């Protein structure tokens, strides 16, 4: 069951077209999975549309700029509905297929190969083009990310399975934003592990134990 949603101001900003593109992508994917937020967005957008399009004062008569635009538009062909682009609706890891929310499907073709990180943790980078970078992260059962905090923000959407992080437990569809006030240790005990989609805008900052030791040695990993 989904318990973690975008907060209301973020949902409003998303509906109005006012939030950062990365945030818009995350919220859009969450909305695909969450009937409650979907309904909220429809209502917010209907309100905004009403407000925008119900202006008592009449607009000035169309000038030549609008006539030119109108004629340009009606010269356009109707979109070719016959051949919609075929896109993957799922991603695969180790023979397992994960069905993705609609918003994320168009990014499957720009998703790189899986790499194994420490322990039972897997990562596949996603090139979002103008938006930047994201990652699919997969935790096998018992997999964990070393305890860390964030210099910037980390947005995470659970695509499949469940995980916990010492703060709460997250289920499929849950959306969270973490920043430098959150210190957490994500791990999954779900039998089928957990797949998340995540965008971070600054490097993670490892806070505990042996992981901290790794920081200055990063060059050793890229021999």
């Amino acid at each position, binding site marked *: 069951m989904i318990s973690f949603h975008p907060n209301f101001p973020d949902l409003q900003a998303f509906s*109005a*077209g006012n939030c950062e*593109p990365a945030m*818009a992508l995350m919220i859009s994917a969450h909305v695909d999975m969450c009937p409650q937020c979907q309904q909220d967005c*429809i209502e917010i*957008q*209907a309100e*905004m*549309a*009403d407000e*925008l*399009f*119900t202006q008592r004062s*009449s*607009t*000035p*008569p*169309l000038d*030549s*700029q*609008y*006539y*030119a*635009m*109108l*004629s*340009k*538009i*009606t010269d*356009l062909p109707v979109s070719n509905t016959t051949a919609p682009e075929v896109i993957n609706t799922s991603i695969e890891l180790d023979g397992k297929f994960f069905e993705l929310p609609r918003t994320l499907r168009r990014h499957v073709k720009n998703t790189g*190969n*899986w*790499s*194994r*990180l*420490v*322990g039972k943790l897997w*990562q596949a980078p996603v090139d979002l*083009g*103008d*938006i*930047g*970078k994201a*990652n699919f992260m997969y935790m096998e059962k018992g997999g964990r990310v*070393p305890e860390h905090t964030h210099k910037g923000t980390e947005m995470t959407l659970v695509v499949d399975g469940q995980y916990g992080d010492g703060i709460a437990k997250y289920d499929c569809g849950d959306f969270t934003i973490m920043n430098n006030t959150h210190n957490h240790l994500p791990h999954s005990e779900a039998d089928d592990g957990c797949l998340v989609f995540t965008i*971070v805008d*600054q*490097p*993670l900052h490892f806070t505990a*134990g*042996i992981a901290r*030791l*790794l*920081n*200055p*040695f*990063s060059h*050793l*990993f890229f*021999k």
Partner: protein
Amino acid sequence: MLVGISLETKQINSVKPIECAEEMSEYLSIIARDRCKRSFSKIFSYFAPRLRSYALKQMGNEALAMELVQDTMSNVWQKSHLFNSEKGSPSTWIFTIARNIRFDMLRKQRNRKEDVCSDDLWPILCEQTPDANEVSLDHQVTMDEIGVLFESLPEKQKLVVEAIYIDGKSQQEVANELDIPLGTVKSRTRLALQRLKEMLKDND
């Protein structure tokens, strides 16, 4: 310029969208069915100028605002068959198209310099494998291995490295605590790193 198409601006302007939703829905279905330019001109006359005020507020620039209006109305013209009056009003549908185009434009506007490479974001833990089949997973260094290698360091080096990299102390603090010269702390750190590097190489 537009022969045979009259723009009944005033008439439509006086009607509130709540009341004209049905009428607009009807135009959209005629556009979808017949590609009727006259119906489109009615939709256009009503929505385009109002969209401009949204676009101006969002984009803060006349040229970009008109681009948003044009892209939105082009979508309305080309995708009118996707409008479903049971799912919402024409206003909401058109607003949502405008909102999506606004996001597209926002993305394109963004300065690429802001982008951070994902390699930087997951700096330490990532082992690059261009092709998963090429590199045996057994050969990858895991944190457990690092831990083991760390344990095998000479006691004196381990103490210094632990204090600096795990406890987060400065080299000077470590020197003071252990009552050894700063130079010794530095050399022990350097030697420990070199030794770890050698061990990782041998491990490969």
